[in-house]
């Protein structure tokens, strides 16, 4: 069996001097870790910021980690490090839904509460998932949005992240489902392109879309790098108003193009809130308030009471609907995240 549980005597004593603000059930600060996909990503920074806020509101210690490359291998290594440190909980934004399973199971066997947020790991490797928004709602809303922008008819294309990205792929599935509705009879999805979340590749792909489909009316880019790169191309080529752009993106990256009208509006949730909710869910798991079972409830600080609901084989907590950013509110958000 796994050897993670052999040294229990160390877990109670905390060698570092605990601060005066110490609270929590054991009297010592408990340790809550979050692992994001990779470092240097402002979206992730905001999520970790929200997580840290929630943990510190409870008087505990937050450990923020992110590997330099967005790989599952690196996250496994970090999980091992956290198990060695005997943290109380690990929240992870998975780079792969399945690949972390053995490592996360080892953590759970060692008594660590495990949850995922934003990008889910599979149901077996977590106790609960914090979902930023319902994938179905996201997919359907994006199609509704683009359809409205192009007046209900014309060719559209999707510019995604990598062909492997789980979140994006789920959303794209739902987009396709929504398109089956007869009211989109005149809306035609001509291509799903992948920009790999690289600026240069996203730009080439956008340019190729524009040239291969001269009648293209709209682009949906459900990823920050993609939507910003597409915004840049449309701006530079003077296609504002001719090709519509929407999708999911950070307000700060997209402010320029929303203010200029290249993208009339787009959606996103608040990553700070995602992290914040995950922080409270982790606290609740460690406290024993919840176990991750359907129907349990906990109070998530300023977000109020949240309930655990079903999600396929597993369970999840839903943050809410994606937020719509347009020229009326972008100025206020662009400096926040």
């Amino acid at each position, binding site marked *: 069996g796994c*050897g*993670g549980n052999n040294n229990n005597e*160390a877990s109670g004593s905390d060698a570092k001097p605990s601060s005066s603000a110490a609270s929590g059930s054991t009297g010592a600060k408990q340790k809550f870790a979050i692992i994001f996909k990779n470092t240097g990503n402002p979206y992730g920074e905001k999520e970790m910021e929200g997580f840290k806020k929630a943990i510190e509101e409870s008087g505990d210690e937050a450990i923020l*980690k992110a590997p330099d490359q967005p790989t599952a291998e690196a996250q496994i*290594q970090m999980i091992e490090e956290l198990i*060695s440190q005997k943290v109380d909980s690990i929240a992870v934004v998975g780079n792969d839904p399945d690949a972390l399973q053995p490592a996360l199971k080892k953590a759970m066997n060692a008594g660590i509460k495990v949850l995922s947020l934003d990008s889910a790991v599979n149901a077996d490797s977590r106790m609960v998932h914090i979902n930023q928004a319902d994938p179905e709602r996201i997919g359907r809303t994006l199609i509704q949005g683009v359809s409205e922008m192009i007046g209900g008819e014309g060719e559209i294309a999707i510019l995604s992240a990598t062909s492997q990205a789980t979140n994006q792929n789920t959303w794209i599935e739902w987009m396709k489902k929504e398109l089956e509705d007869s009211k989109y009879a005149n809306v035609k999805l001509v291509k799903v392109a992948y920009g790999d979340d690289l600026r240069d590749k996203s730009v080439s792909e956008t340019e190729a879309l524009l040239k291969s489909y001269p009648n293209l009316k709209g682009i949906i880019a459900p990823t920050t790098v993609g939507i910003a790169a597409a915004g840049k191309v449309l701006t530079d080529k003077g296609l504002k108003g001719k090709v519509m752009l929407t999708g999911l993106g950070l307000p700060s990256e997209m402010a320029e193009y929303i203010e200029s009208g290249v993208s009339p509006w787009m959606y996103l949730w608040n990553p700070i809130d995602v992290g914040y909710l995950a922080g409270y869910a982790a606290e609740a798991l460690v406290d024993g308030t919840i176990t991750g079972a359907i129907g349990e409830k906990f109070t998530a600080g300023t977000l109020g009471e949240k309930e655990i609901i079903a999600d396929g084989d597993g369970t999840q907590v839903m943050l809410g609907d994606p937020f719509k950013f347009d020229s009326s509110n972008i100025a206020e958000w662009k400096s926040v995240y």
Partner: protein
Amino acid sequence: MEPRLLQNKRDFSVKGFLLQWEWMLVVLFLAMTVMNINLSEYYWNFDNLRDATMSFLDKAFIVLPMVFIIIVGDIDISVGSIVALSSVIMADLYNHGVPMPIAMLICLAVGTLCGYINGLLVVKFKELSAVIVTLSTMIIYRGIAYILLKDQAAGKFPDWFNFLGWEYVGGIPFILIAFVVFAILFWYLLHKTTFGRKVYAMGSNLTASRFSGIQTDRIKIIVFTLTGLMSAVCALFLTSRMGSTRPNIANGYELDVIAMVVLGGISTSGGKGRMIGAILAIFLIGYLRYGLGLVNVSAQTLLIIIGLLLIVAVSIPKLKLGKKR
């Protein structure tokens, strides 16, 4: 002409012995250990040290044959892609009903084949350097992995497959035992056999080796093939640790592997270096990362530290031995 007698003994100089690269790695290793013990109370703990090896030893399997390739004066930057391709094919076959043991054998075969192709291209097209050849096969092999698996992950392996990456034999991680066995084999091959001697000769002077009756082409092909095989071994362990696979696994492994080889004192211009150095480097980097990870040093700081370590370690001996005209 009367025969002049030659001395039988090698000149032994204490200074020369102590100035060996490997000692420097040992010193660095000790310094790193002391530092880590001071940094984190969790570091000096048998279970932790033992489990840490499980997460950094997968690449180490590729370091072993890469030592040969670099001593021969070539380089292989396609290893990460070979890991991905062999792992993806194994998972794909298993998901299509091929029994796992057979899928694993095929994984090894695929890696071996990829390595063989690299070797063949390098040998048949001498006007191209190994960098170019493996740069293109790097893209191609991973490309095939993408074609096979598209955006899917493949996995749900039988439970016993976990054994490779996660289980212990007599309290020692299986991966560590496997690594030690391979390390001894490769050490022996490099330092105690004619094959190893020929590899050094080729790295020092390829033409002279050929004129001395060494089948240089054959040896190059063998060395590349071995690297492919060991990449597949890495694929087995890595896939076991991840429990599933995707076309993008082991991305960037080539640079990590080469960094370890080079830190181990193996010169990229060929002909110089020892296996023990590379092995020390594996553990040095592995435990350094782990120790700093225990105190949650940020990824960017870790990058800087590892980068500087590489530079500083390589500079120290150069600074000491000023060149004499």
